[in-house]
C-alpha cells in the first residue's frame, strides 16, 4: 500500500501524447507537405524580420562614439547636423556625415517598401538590375558607372514599380502583411465559428434552430458587394478589412463544428462527465472540443489561403489596404496597368502562386495527418 503513493511522477514520455506523435509521423510521411511547411515557416519567419532585411535606414550605426539603432529608434536629423524631423539615411549628406564619424551596418536591401529610388536610370518602372547592362544600371547616378553608390546594396533586384519603389522590398513586406492578415483572420474566424458551432451542436433544439436560420440568411448576403460598400464608407485599413471579412468568414467553421458536437454530445464519456456533475462549459472544452478540433485544424490551411486570396483581390480592385501599403494585390494591378513592365506582374504571380501552393500542400499533409484511416508504409 505504501508503495502506491510513491509512484507520483508521470513517466517521461515527452511533451506530446502518442496520438500527436503518430500524427506528426503521418505529417512527415507526406514529404511534399512536410517540406512545404518548413519552406513556408522559414519564409514567414524571414518576412517577420522584414525591417532587418529591407529598410531605408541602417540597423546599427556608430556616430561620434555613440551606438545608434536607427531601425528601431527615430533620430531627428539635427543629431547628424541636418534639419528634417526624420533622418533620411539614404541621402549623401547624412551618409557622408556618419561615415566620417563612425560606421553603419545596413540591411542587405537598402529600400523600405515606401522608399523611392532617386537614382533610377529612366522613368519608373525600371526593370530588374540583372536585365540591365552596367552602363544602364548606373545611368541615374550623378557620376555614372564610377559612382560609389552604384553597388549591389542599392540595386533593385526585382526592378521598381511605377513610383520607383523597390519591388523586392515591397513583396517582402507584402508577403508579411498578407500572411499576417490571413493568420489573424483565420484565427479569429475559427474562434467565432467554433464557438458558434459548439453552442449550436451542444445545446441543440431552439438554440440550434434559430442560429441555423440566422446563418442561412447571413451567408446568403452578397459578401463582395457589402465589402465594396463598407470599404467605400469606412477608411480602409488593416483593422477595418479584418473586421468586415470576419463578419462573414466565421460561418465556414460552424457546419463542421456543429456536426461534431451534435455527434459527440451523446457519447458515453460525455454522459459520464455529466453524471459527475461537470459543467457544460468544461464538458465542451475538455471532452467535445478535441473532437471538433481535428476537423477544424484540417480546415485551417484552406481558410488561410482563402483569406489571403480575398485580401489580394480587394487590393487589386483598389478597395483594400490604404494607398502606399505594400500589397501583392496592388502589385498585380500595377502589372496590369504597366503591361510593358512584365516583371511587376510576374513577380506578384510567382510570389502568390508559390505562397498559396505551399499552404495547400501543408493543408493536404495536415488532412492526411489527422486521417485515422490513412496508413503509410
Amino acid at each position, binding site marked *: 500500500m505504501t508503495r502506491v503513493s510513491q*509512484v507520483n511522477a508521470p513517466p517521461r514520455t515527452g511533451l506530446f501524447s502518442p496520438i500527436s506523435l503518430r500524427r506528426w509521423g503521418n505529417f512527415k510521411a507526406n514529404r511534399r507537405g512536410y517540406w512545404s511547411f518548413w519552406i513556408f515557416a522559414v519564409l514567414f519567419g524571414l518576412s517577420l524580420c522584414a525591417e532587418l532585411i529591407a529598410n531605408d535606414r541602417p540597423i546599427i550605426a556608430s556616430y561620434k562614439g555613440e551606438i545608434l539603432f536607427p531601425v528601431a529608434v527615430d533620430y531627428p536629423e539635427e543629431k547628424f547636423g541636418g534639419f528634417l524631423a526624420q533622418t533620411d539615411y539614404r541621402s549623401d549628406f547624412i551618409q557622408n556625415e556618419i561615415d566620417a564619424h563612425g560606421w553603419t551596418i545596413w540591411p542587405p536591401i537598402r529600400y523600405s517598401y515606401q522608399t523611392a529610388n532617386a537614382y533610377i536610370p529612366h522613368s519608373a518602372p525600371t526593370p530588374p538590375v540583372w536585365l540591365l547592362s552596367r552602363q544602364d544600371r548606373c545611368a541615374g547616378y550623378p557620376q555614372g558607372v564610377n559612382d560609389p553608390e552604384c553597388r549591389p546594396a542599392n540595386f533593385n533586384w526585382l526592378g521598381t514599380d511605377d513610383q520607383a519603389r523597390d519591388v523586392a522590398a515591397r513583396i517582402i513586406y507584402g508577403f508579411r502583411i498578407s500572411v499576417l492578415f490571413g493568420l489573424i483572420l483565420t484565427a479569429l474566424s475559427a474562434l467565432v465559428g467554433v464557438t458558434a458551432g459548439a453552442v449550436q451542436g451542444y445545446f441543440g433544439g431552439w438554440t440550434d434552430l434559430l442560429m441555423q436560420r440566422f446563418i442561412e440568411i447571413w451567408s446568403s448576403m452578397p459578401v463582395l458587394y457589402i465589402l465594396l460598400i463598407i470599404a467605400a464608407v469606412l477608411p480602409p485599413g488593416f483593422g477595418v478589412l479584418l473586421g468586415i471579412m470576419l463578419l462573414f468568414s466565421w460561418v465556414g467553421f460552424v457546419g463542421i463544428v456543429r456536426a461534431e458536437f451534435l455527434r459527440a454530445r451523446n*457519447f458515453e*464519456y460525455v454522459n459520464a462527465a455529466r453524471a459527475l456533475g461537470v459543467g457544460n462549459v468544461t464538458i465542451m472544452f475538455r471532452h467535445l472540443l478535441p473532437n471538433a478540433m481535428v476537423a477544424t485544424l484540417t480546415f485551417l490551411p484552406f481558410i488561410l489561403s482563402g483569406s489571403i486570396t480575398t485580401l489580394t483581390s480587394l487590393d487589386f480592385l483598389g478597395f483594400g489596404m490604404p494607398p502606399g501599403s505594400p500589397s501583392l494585390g496592388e502589385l498585380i494591378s500595377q502589372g496590369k496597368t504597366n503591361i510593358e513592365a512584365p516583371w511587376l506582374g510576374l513577380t506578384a504571380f510567382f510570389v502568390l502562386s508559390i505562397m498559396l501552393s505551399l499552404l495547400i500542400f501543408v493543408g493536404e499533409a495536415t488532412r492526411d495527418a489527422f486521417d485515422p484511416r490513412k496508413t503509410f508504409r
Partner: protein
Amino acid sequence: MSDVTEPLLSIRDLSVAFHQGGKTTLAVDSVSFDIQRGEVLALVGESGSGKSVTANSILKLLPYPAASHPGGSILFKGQDLMRATDADLRRVRGNDITMIFQEPMTSLNPLHTIEKQIAEILALHGEVSVKTARARVLELLNQVGIREPEKRLAAYPHELSGGQRQRVMIAMALANRPELLIADEPTTALDVTVQAQILKLLKDLQVQHGMSMLFITHDLGIVRKFADRVCVMTGGKIVESGPVVEIFDNPRHAYTRHLLTSEPKGTPPARDAAKPVVLEATDVKVWFPIKAGFMRRVVDYVKAVDGIDMRLRAGHTLGVVGESGSGKTTLGLALTRLIASKGRIAFVGKDIQDYRFARMKPLRARMQVVFQDPFGSLSPRMPIADIIAEGLAIHESGLSATERDRRVAQALEEVGLDPATRWRFPHEFSGGQRQRVAIARAMVLKPKFVMLDEPTSALDMSVQAQVVDLLRDLQRRHDLAYLFISHDLKVVRALANDMIVMRLGKVMEQGPADEIFDAPQHAYTQALMAAAFNLEAVTSSVIRE
C-alpha cells in the same frame, strides 16, 4: 461423390497475418478443422481469439492486402479456396457457402426493399427469372417465419424489428440452397427471447436442408444446445476440439475449463431492512411527446417509462431487467436526473426532482453512473489518471495535487488495477480493464448510490464474472446501493436483491429477485427466463417477433 466420408470443408494449417504500420500480427495461427456434411460445428472463443477472422478467411472476405495468409489451405469439396481466382470465389460466395453476420441492420442495404435484396442474390447466381423470383422470395420468407410475407415484400430494413431483419438475412443466405452456412454471432445483437426464436429457426432449417453450419459464438449455452462438435479458440489457436458432449463433460485444456467455469456466480448480500433508504421513487414517468402538424401540436406520447415505483436501501441491489426498448436505461437516467422526468424522486431523503444544476451538483458526488460500453465511456484523449480525477476536481476542489493523485491511486487499487498504469491512455487497456477504470471513476468520489447501466454486456464471459465479483466486493465494503440495469438474467441473479421486470415502459413484475427467479408469475417473465436460461423459444402473445 467418390467418397462419402470426405469432409465438406477441410481447413489445414490456416494462418492469417495483419500488417499495420510496419508491424505484423498473427491473428490466426495454424488452425485446422473439418466440417462434415450436415454437421454443425461451433467455433467458440472470447473477443480477439481470431474466430471471426478464421470464418471470414474461408470466403476470403478479409481486407487484403493488409491481411495475408502465410500458409494453409481451405479445401471446399476438393477445391482450394485459398488459391482460387476471384471469379471462382464469386461462384462459391452466396451460392455454395453463405454467411450471416451479427448486426442485421448494417448487413442489409437500407435503401432497398426486402424483395429486391433477396431477388438480387437469386439473380446473381441463379437461373431464376424475374417472374419466378417473387415466388421464390415469398417461399423463402415463409421458410424463415416472416408472417404475411406478401405484405413485407415492399418493406425497407428499418421497418422491420431486429429479429425480422435477421430472418431476412437468413432468407438471403438460404436463397441458393447453400451447402455450408457460416453464422458469425448471428444472435448476439438480439434480445434473449428473439435469440431463442432465431436459434430454433436456424436449427430447423439446418435439419430440413441437411446443411452444414459453421457457428461462431462466444456463448457456451448456445454451443451446448446447438452444435454437434466444437472448436475452442484462444489467441489465434484452436486449443481443443471434439464432440460437444465430450468437451463439456470432460474438458482437457485449461482454457476450456476456465471458460466453462467462468459464468457469473454467487449471490447478493443478504437483505437488511434496517439499512437506510438511499433512493426512493414514486410514479416516475418519462414521456417523449410526438408532435405533428403545422403547429407541432403534441398528439401523443412515447411512454418510455410509465409510472414506476422503487425503493433502494444501502447495501442492496435493485436489478432492472428488460429487452431493448423496454425503457430500463431511460429509467436509470431519470432516477439520476440525467434526463427530465415526472414523479417523486428522493435521494437520501431529499426530494431532488426539482433541483437545478447548482443544487444537484453536490449530490452528484454521492450518485454515480457506470455505462455499458467501456470503449465509449472513457475519453480517448485523456490519461486515466485525469479521467478518474475529473470528479475530484469538481467535488473536492480543496485537495492538493498530491492528495488527489493518492486518491486516484487508491481507487485504481480498489478496482484491482496497478496504480502505476494511471498515466496510460484508455486504448492501452483491454475491455475489462477499461470497465474497471470506469468503476474507479465512480468509486473515487465515495458514492452512496451507483447506477450501473449494462456494465457487463460488452465484456467477455470470463471478464464479466470478474467484474461481477468486483462489484459485489465494492458493495460489501462501502455499503453501496446499486441500480443494476441489464438484459442478462444470469448477471442479475448474481447481484440483485430486488428486481423489476420492464416491458414497454411498464412494470411486468416487481419483487424480491430470488422469488421471481424461482417462480416467475407473469407470462412475459416466464418467457424471458426460458429464453435466457434454456434458450427455449416460447410462442406466446407476450413476445415480439
